């Protein structure tokens, strides 16, 4: 009788484990998705340099690409902490860029300065936190600016 009890318990545990596994797998499958986080900086003067920090509070964000913005004054992909991102240690990323183009060619107003492409795991909706560290004008002085984000999933 005791052996049977043991076997019943084992089967029950196995079923439970498989059920949890199904659930986790389903959750994992549903959660492995991609999104493009567009970062916008809004200024009243030409924007020559910017730096922001982006964090995802649930810790489920994995950076899979960092893209330059819309302005032709910023033709190259921006700087970011590669070592931290490459080690997968970043739930937070700092991104920065600058342009040596003349002020007339620099973006003014609300402009997309960068896009952080991310892979998200987990079922919960991501909770992004965005902070503008600094924005600068063509003469190198800091300027007031507003920062915001928008996400795209291509779906």
């Amino acid at each position, binding site marked *: 009788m*005791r052996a049977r009890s043991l076997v019943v318990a084992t089967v029950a545990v*196995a079923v439970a484990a498989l059920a949890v596994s*199904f659930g986790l797998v389903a959750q994992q499958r549903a959660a492995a998705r991609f999104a493009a986080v567009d970062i916008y900086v809004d200024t009243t003067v030409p924007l020559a340099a910017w730096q922001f920090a982006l964090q995802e509070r649930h810790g489920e964000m994995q*950076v*899979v*690409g960092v*893209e*330059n913005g819309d302005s032709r004054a910023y033709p190259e992909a921006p700087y970011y902490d590669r070592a931290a991102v490459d080690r997968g240690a970043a739930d937070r990323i700092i991104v920065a860029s600058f342009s040596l183009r003349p002020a007339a060619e620099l973006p003014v107003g609300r402009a997309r300065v960068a896009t952080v*492409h991310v892979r998200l795991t987990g079922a919960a909706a991501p909770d992004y936190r965005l902070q503008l560290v600094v924005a600068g004008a063509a003469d190198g002085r800091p300027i007031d600016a507003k920062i915001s984000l928008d996400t795209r999933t*291509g779906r």
Partner: protein
Amino acid sequence: MSRERRRFGIRSMDNKARESRLADGAFVAIAAAVITVLVAACASSRLSDDGGAAATAGSTAASAGAAGSTSLGAPEGEGPQEVVVTGSRVGGQQAQHEQRAEHAQRAEPAPHSATAGGLVTIPPSLSERSAAIAGSAPIAAAGADVGREAQPHGVAGSLFSRVRPGEEIWVIETLAVREQPAEVEDDQPGSGALLALVTRADDPQRSQVEVPLPLQHTDVHAVITGYVGSVDVTQQFANPYDEKIEAVYMFPLPEKAAVSEFVMTIGERKIRGILREKEEAQRIYQDARAQGYRASLLVQYRPNVFEQKVANIEPGKRIDVNIRYFHTLAYEDGWYSFVFPTVVGPRYNPAGLKDPVTAVPRGDNRDPVSGTAVRYLRPNERSAHDIGIAVDLDAGVAIEELAASHAIKTTMDGRNRAHVELASASTIPNRDFVLRFRVAGDEIKSSFLTYTDPKSKQGYFTLMIYPPSGLAALARRPLEMVFVIDTSGSMSGRPLEQATAAVSAALDRLGSSDTFQIMNFSTYVSSLAAAPLPATRENRDRGRRYLRSLGADGGTEMLGGIRAALNYAPDPQRDRFVAFLTDGYIGNEAEIFSEVHRLIGGARIFSFGVGNSVNRYLLDGLAMEGRGAAAYLALEDSADEVMSYFFERISHPALTDVSIDWRGLAVSDVYPRRIPDLFVGRPVVITGQFKGGADTIAVHGRAGKDSLTFGLVPAVAQPAIRTLWARLRIEDLARRYTWSGSRDLAADIRSTALEYGLMSAYTSFVAVDASERTPGEHGTTVNQAVPVPDGVHYKTTVAERGASGF
């Protein structure tokens, strides 16, 4: 005792207990069956999801009268014939597809029977229908030889669009015996986007026609400062088909390249990729690909062989991938060399090799069981892919002379700077680009470059030690010269001519007190004599007769050649120098290095790369393990001159027992770990880390019986020194891993690569454009076919060897 045993619940085994035990056993069996069913259900659920993603071109299934039916009878009027049924089910299940693929694979039609790039053809009735729809004959259909995905096809695209989701498509092939050579059977006008419209056999011009493949152009821009090069490689992938594709391209880079940047460009958008552990990068890429996102992945198979994948390139669209790497230039006898390899040579892989690099014909798109495969164009096929190379050179001193392997255009900017471009008429990427330049000065001075990371305070140095010219006056010891010639199929023709000419020239330079041996290897090893012969005139003539008797055929069992050359008792009166002459087209480099490490003893190995696109990773590695040097003999070079340089180098004692007095500088992680001997005209580059301030150091060595010492003052260099150090550390760890297999070394390689942001065997770059999903789940895979290297025979390297390991 009995009371204590009762406490453990132990029961007796009387008859009643036996019956109970049987019941328990049955119960356990039922429970096990339940668990098995649950596990199988779980696994099946996973498979069904993956199978959907791997379905063959879900939106491009061929439709014909055969859809949903199978006819095993021979077409009317054609008599009894063997019929093989293959099929693809739109959105179907992986298991079912593989089952059919396996069945078709057993039939294994000959590669050269291909018409549409795949290995199945359409019977006349079906062909007529398809022609009526799209005006061309054969259709590439899913089957064993095309792996998990169907081959996209202009015709197929039209037909596939007629199939509704969920319908089945069956293509029936009749295997008539055909003896048509590739030239004729590919000669079908309008035979599809993937095919070369090959010149008909009766065309006296026999002009080549282009194969539309995804890689349009490779652009190379190198900036050389002193002896450090920073190189940007941009690969332009475009989709010439009417459905989206995944492009796959195998290509070479210099084996010491430190690949540190990866950017995917879509229009004006630049997405900088990230470096991850290889498996994780592949997962990210596969996820993105399956979900329809544009993505790119760079994987290293060898230090000089890489695979680029670009997923979901939409019809008519283009995606560029930019790779940046650093490396140091080789210096030899007054000349610096910048080398950019353009094509991976077809490799021979000994049986049982775990990760082969297999050479297969264009159109054979099966996925290998292990390792990877390079697809080669046939001799009369030419891809539209061309290459542009530009070099901005700042030598730091006056440039005396420039020479290149290709036609170039040169613009000087003062005496120290030059801009060099590949001439437009010389852009077929089937031979390495080599730019050599000679700088002013009778003697290149040794240099000591340093860089200190401002954040971590960690210092890095690069030390180039150049042997003093005074060595040229000293005489050498008698030699036991062992010439080992690769006579495998890939050496057929001009390569073997060069190799035998080089050895023949070497025989003339042997001294009366030297001895020599000539060996050759392909599938087997042969030798001139049972033991080395004195270098008398008679014996040298005998050696030349032996060289004239050699022919190139068979596999490249280089291990046999290594063992034959090293595994016998050394002559205590002579220095054994082994000259290996080969194109290096093998896949088991790690085995070779390990064996050399084991057997080298007091001998030296000098490797000669013979050909225009040799495996420099192998050749430099042989020289490194063999404490010798590598030389390169291109097909247009003078074998006599190259061998003359070689003997000039070895005819004077090297600077041996080299040591460095760091004078209080706290150094660590110095590579190479063992400072090799210095030969006249050949510097040695050493890198390492240090702490504290850098000061003058002293280099000591022996030249014969004499001791030599000279000092070096540090100069501040750029951060590239840091990257170069990391790359050499990875190289050292990888080499040690070949003979130890220690997992700690693999972990060290991984962590070093991640810390310094470098490609390695364990790290890969990946970039994903998550802003937009392309229609459909993922694109069809198109493997970029490449030309065989200049001077290499296709028939003896690809057609004969291909198709193993699948």
